[in-house]
């Protein structure tokens, strides 16, 4: 399962958060759980992006990308020291 999962950075559209949510974190979590019930949020981002990072299978990432409010699901990359 670990080998099949990758980390993704998810950008969400702040303006589309349903009124039923009182805070962004619960909205992020709900969106994530609807695509992958066992997935956990690694980080939430406030400034760089309105969103979070998580581990997903490619299939779950695809499902998540189709959820309302999701702007993008970008696979994590490894950068190098120069």
């Amino acid at each position: 399962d670990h080998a099949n999962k990758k980390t993704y950075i998810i950008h969400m559209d702040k303006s589309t958060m349903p009124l039923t949510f009182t805070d962004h974190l619960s909205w992020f979590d709900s969106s994530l759980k609807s695509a992958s019930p066992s997935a956990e949020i690694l980080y939430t981002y406030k400034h760089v992006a309105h969103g979070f990072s998580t581990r997903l299978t490619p299939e779950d990432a695809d499902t998540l990308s189709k959820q309302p409010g999701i702007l993008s699901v970008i696979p994590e990359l490894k950068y190098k020291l120069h």
Partner: protein
Amino acid sequence: TTRTPSFLGLDKATTLLPASEQQSQVIIGVLDTGVWPELKSLDDTGLGPVPSTWKGQCEIGNNMNSSNCNRKLVGARFFSKGYEAALGPIDTTTESKSARDDDGHGSHTLTTAAGSVVPEASLFGLASGTARGMATQARVAVYKVCWLGGCFTSDIAAGIDKAIEDGVNVLSMSIGGSLMEYYRDIIAIGSFTATSHGILVSTSAGNGGPSQGSLSNVAPWITTVGAGTIDRDFPAYITLGTGKTYTGASLYRGKPLSDSPLPLVYAGNASNSSVGYLCLQDSLIPEKVSGKIVICERGGNPRVEKGLVVKLAGGAGMILANSEAYGEELVADSHLLPAASLGQKSSEILKNYVSSSPNPTAKIAFLGTHLQVQPSPVVAAFSSRGPNALTPKILKPDLIAPGVNILAGWTGAVGPTGLTVDSRHISFNIISGTSMSCPHVSGLAAILKGAHPQWSPAAIRSALMTTAYTSYKNGETIQDVSTGQPATPFDYGAGHVDPVAALDPGLVYDANVDDYLGFFCALNYSSFQIKLAARRDFTCDSKKVYRVEDFNYPSFAVPLETTSGIGGGSDAPKTVKYSRVLTNVGAPGTYKASVVSLGDLNVKIVVEPETLSFTELYEKKGYMVSFRYTSMPSGTTSFARLEWTDGKHRVGSPIAFSWT
């Protein structure tokens, strides 16, 4: 660092330098491998209270606690969730799950930017002197996002996010990935938000040189820094059995080789591997190298690892031969055995000697530190080069700064080679890379921020660029070490940084978030793509004409059309126009434009108006530059320089033409 402050003129008394109290209000955030907090370079003696706006923290972790921070090192955070999610839990026996630096790179970059003054610094007596960062009074905060297994973008994003929230003023990132659209590149995205918060983001250009179009971090809101040499080297003499001596470079300070010549062997002839000449791990045949000096070719694996491979195979010494790609660049390393690097021309002679002589021999002698080396600076071969493959109308790198053989602070966790077997403990190490030039500019930007707190990141970057120099005192253009020929703006951007001149640039090319949004429109980004890159809803005005040509950048990159083959193109001259806006940040004055061609110029350049008069501080005046050109074969390049001067200030911009 030793030597680079004087090389940059920071030791000269100048009334332009900000008072220490102003500089100490500036906080530089460094995203890297962490910090070794016990370094003397982080001594906070004489520094006043931490700015009240600062929200950072010294996070407790493995081998690190809150008392490791002080008035110099004001914050230390670590971001490992992405790393651990990808590679499993951190093994705390080999790596600190904290901001402590287990690598050395982070301590080096951080102390280069803002280390305190440390007298009598050296690496085994080499590069000795008083070490200091560029902004000695500025504060530093470390954000550890790079681990022994690499730097993961989820961690980098978290680090940038927190640095913005903590309140850094300058963000220094000597890291990069492959080139991709701005809305997919986490450094570009994060830097956009940082810049919109007034934070200057300085990044390394990459070490992909001398290949053309090898840049990282090309977003126009980022300051992209290439690398040059300083007037210091570490020569080693390599004397062949023929009696001829060639000069290389080395930081080796252990037991010297005997005075007697030793047998010399080419690694490619002492290996069963088809790439044995690279001295990769376990590739050498011990019987063929034992007691000999081995010639290894540069590339493929770390330079110091080649020395270790030779040592483990029983070799007595190593000569690291440059290929054509590296030219005459001599990057010195503190090898574990007597070893020296050698330029391409000498390396060819050595290899010919080995192949033609029945009993080739050599000696290596190490000469220590040499100063006042000329010409300097020269563009490092490894420094990534333009043109900018993502946005050809933005010239990158922005400028160059010292990045070769830089002495700065080091971790206590590993020796100078960074190899596991290297048990030597040091406080300072000498290393090279655009990683080293980036924090020089970060520290210099902090000095400018201290002197001019109200300046935007774009204004500070502009001041650094327009005052950069492109020629030596004798008037000759800065050289490219990979060719030995004059370098071009694709190599050095606006030139080599001159911080004292940057403090009083006269005029600046300013830009704000609206300009960057207009830049996205000029790239034909959709509102969706802009939202990803800039984190805001923005729709380009369909009635407005957006052009990258009019984006207020301090340099000019002008891609031009070429003929499409016989009968396929027109030879009639064409004209392209670029516009810019200058902001007065000095006294009232009248500036006159002049254009100088660098070599053969195939373009007619007209600046309108030719003079600009400023009567008030922060007054803005626009101008237009027309480039009239005829078609040239694809790949042709041509260069010029536009300067505005009032007799006191010289506001210079490089112009790079490329026919594509």
